[in-house]
């Protein structure tokens, strides 16, 4: 098993996901090549987090396929990492949190010590390495989650709203780290509700709405001339549930099945 074997491109083919008969991701097809950073945006309930979890393998699609490249499906597990909206901190020291992840990848002890020191240093957590992870501030916890993911040197890193509840300073620090990880060659696929962040971090943008991919475009194009009128409205900061109605039944070539009967 060679974790360095390429797992990209990631190909989603007609992927749907439903819970209790409710289709939350609908007929989604796309391909992620190595290289660019992708931001997935869309209103709440659009299915952004589900989309990430499907790609990462935490959820199994109800229909369609999700395929990683490479000779061996198992490779894909060890070559990915994910950082969650609410960082999950093990009840251990900062260093032990990273160490745990590295042990799962069968890194030897000397190896681990070096990597831990490196990633904690680069994420500005070195002085906190012996502190209990769970008493860190929220921003520090998110940085540690990133450090833990970084230590694994993943080919693909999924980030689910990594700065959702952070102040501007912490947001900035997190974005710096994401950039640094990207510069080392890791494919970034992240969700965000912060359009500014999408502009700052992403090379391309996917716009999701009610489980459908309504637009997939380079960031520049998306923000200047979004094809889809819902995406336009979203970029302008309008409330999308209000915009839905008869007139919007066709949008950017995608069928929008029904106007919402209730707010979510």
């Amino acid at each position, binding site marked *: 098993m060679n974790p360095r074997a390429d797992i990209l491109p990631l190909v989603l083919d007609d992927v749907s996901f439903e819970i209790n008969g409710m289709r939350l991701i609908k007929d989604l097809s796309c391909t992620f090549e190595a290289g660019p950073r992708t931001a997935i945006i869309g209103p709440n309930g659009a299915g952004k987090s589900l989309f990430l*979890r499907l790609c*990462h*393998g*935490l959820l199994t699609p109800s229909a369609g396929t999700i395929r990683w490249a490479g000779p061996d499906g198992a490779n894909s*597990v*060890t070559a*990915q*990492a*994910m950082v*969650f909206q609410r960082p*999950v901190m*093990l*009840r*251990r*020291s900062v260093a032990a949190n990273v160490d*745990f*992840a590295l042990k*799962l*990848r069968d890194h030897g002890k000397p190896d681990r010590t070096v990597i831990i020191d490196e990633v904690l240093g680069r994420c500005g957590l070195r002085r906190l390495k012996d502190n*209990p*992870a*769970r*008493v860190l501030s929220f921003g520090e916890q998110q940085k540690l989650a990133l450090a833990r993911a970084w230590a*694994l040197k993943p080919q693909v890193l999924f980030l689910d709203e990594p700065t959702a509840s952070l102040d501007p300073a912490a947001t900035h620090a997190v974005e710096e780290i994401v950039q640094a990880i990207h510069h080392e060659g890791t494919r970034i696929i992240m969700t965000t509700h912060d359009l500014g962040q999408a502009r700052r971090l992403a090379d391309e943008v996917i716009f999701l709405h009610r489980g459908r991919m309504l637009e997939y475009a380079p960031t520049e194009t998306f923000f200047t001339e979004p094809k889809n009128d819902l995406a336009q409205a979203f970029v302008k900061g309008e409330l999308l549930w209000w915009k839905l109605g008869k007139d919007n039944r066709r949008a950017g070539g995608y069928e929008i099945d029904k106007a919402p009967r209730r707010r979510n």
Partner: protein
Amino acid sequence: MNDISDAFAAAFAMVAGFDKDLAEIVGLSLEVSLSAVFIATVIGLPLGAATALFRFPGRKVIIVVLNAFMGLPPVVVGLIVYLLLSRAGPFGVLGLLFTPTAMIIAQVILVTPIIASLTRQVMEDLWREYEEQMRSLGAGPVRSLTALLWDGRFSLFTAILAGFGRASAEVGAVMIVGGNIDHATRVMTTAIALEVSRGDLALALGLGLILLVLSTCVNGAAFLIRDAAQKRHA
């Protein structure tokens, strides 16, 4: 109440005089209960964690049985173990009846459900929080389970102490399977029961006070260890 002041006097006299019989009884009590709790922990922690983390056939049955057994009267457990270990019973050839081993077996049956059930609750809460992260990191069942047990160690400590509390306080089971034999299977609780039946309430209460102090010491020591460790690791 004269008996109560007498009890303190009796307890003090026993401790001050370092009664050899008392030391033997206290030693056996600790030996039986600590051994039982240790074995119950070795069984109960993985069992409780497994029922929290995994879905497997028979899981719900195990959960219901464990919960029901938490409240099992010690006398009933004692009786069951007695019937099993009696010469007329299926394990009679082992000749374990009226030995400390029999008492440990009975207490393991009493304590394991408590430790396993409390472990399951702790593990379920923790697993809700950890599950996605563990799967994301690619942790298999065994690594997830051990990680959860380790990270839940402070709460699990309380579960184990609850088990020790039940073991050290019960009299029904050890009385039946141990027989309260002098110098062989007499422990604190059966000694107390004996003194009550002799009508020596002050001496019984004195023994009770010593048991209380012992139990407080064990719990206190456990609390201090936990506290110190928690400060370091949280």
